C-alpha cells in the first residue's frame, strides 16, 4: 500500500513537468510598451475600435465568412 502511495506521489509531482510539454509558446515577441520588438506600432484594434479586441475580431471574422459564397447559395 505504501509503495503504491509513494509511486502515486512521484507521479503527481512529475505531472506538471509532463504537462509543460503541451504548451504552445509564441515564436515572436508580442506587443509590449507600444512596440513590436522595438518597432513602434499600434495594435490593430486601437485606432478605430477603441481598443475593443473582440469587436475588431468579430468584424474581421464576419468579413472572412463573406468570402464563402456557399453561405449565400449552397450548390
Amino acid at each position, binding site marked *: 500500500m505504501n509503495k503504491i502511495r509513494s509511486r502515486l506521489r512521484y507521479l503527481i509531482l512529475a505531472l506538471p513537468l509532463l504537462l509543460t510539454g503541451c504548451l504552445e509558446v509564441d515564436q*515572436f515577441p508580442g506587443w509590449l510598451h507600444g512596440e513590436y*520588438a522595438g518597432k513602434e*506600432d499600434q*495594435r490593430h484594434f486601437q485606432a478605430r475600435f477603441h481598443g475593443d479586441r473582440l469587436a475588431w475580431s468579430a468584424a474581421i471574422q464576419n468579413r*472572412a*465568412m463573406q*468570402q*464563402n459564397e456557399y453561405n449565400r447559395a449552397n450548390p
Partner: protein
Amino acid sequence: MAARMKFICDTERCIDCNGCVTACKNEHELAWGINRRRVVTINDGIPGERSVSVACMHCTDAPCLAVCPTNCIYHTEDGIVLHSKDQCIGCGYCYYACPFGAPQFPETGMFNHRGKMDKCTFCAGGPEPDTSEAEFKKYGRNRIAEGKLPACAEQCGTKALLGGEANQIADIYRQRVETRGYGPELWGWKIAYGRPKGGGEIKAKGDLPRTNQIIGDVQNDPGRFPQ
C-alpha cells in the same frame, strides 16, 4: 491563441485576371514598378494550366525576418509580417531569402541602389499611427485597422484568393474541395485538412475524370436544376 492571418489561392478558380494586382496597386497607390502581388501562371497554354496569385505569405517562421541585418521586419500578434521603412537600408537580403519574391524595391540605379523595401502588408500598414497620413504614404492603406480584409482577397471575382484568419479560410477551402469532389491532392493535404469529412471523400484522384468533366452533370447542363 491569437489569430494567424493568411492568404490562400485556390488554383482551380484563379482565372489570371490580375484583378488582385490592380486592386492592390490602386488601394495603396503604389509607385511605378512596384507590384506587391502578382499572378503566376504555370504551364501557360498547355491543357491543365494553373494560375496562382502570389504576394507575401506572412510566414509564421519568416526567413526575411531572420536575415534582415537591421531587424526592421516584425510579426504582429496576429501573424502579419510588417517592416519599418525607417530602419530598412535596402540591402535586399530579404529578397534573396523570400521563397515567393515578395519584397519589392522601388528604384534601380548605380551601385545596386534599390531604395527602401516595399512589400505586401496584408493591408495592415506599418509602424506609424494606424490609418494616419504618414502610414498611408509609407505603407499604404490600413484596412485591417478598419476591420476589413485585404483588398485583393475581398475583390476577387471568382473568390479564388481568400484572406483572413487561417482556420476560417482553411474551412472555406476545405468545404469547397469537398463540394466539388476534388482537390489539389498535394503532399500534406491530410495533415492540413484531413479531419473527418462531413461532405464526403474526394472522389476523383489523379487523372480520373472529374465531376465537372462528366457530360450531363448539373454543372455542364445549364437547363437543369441541381438535385
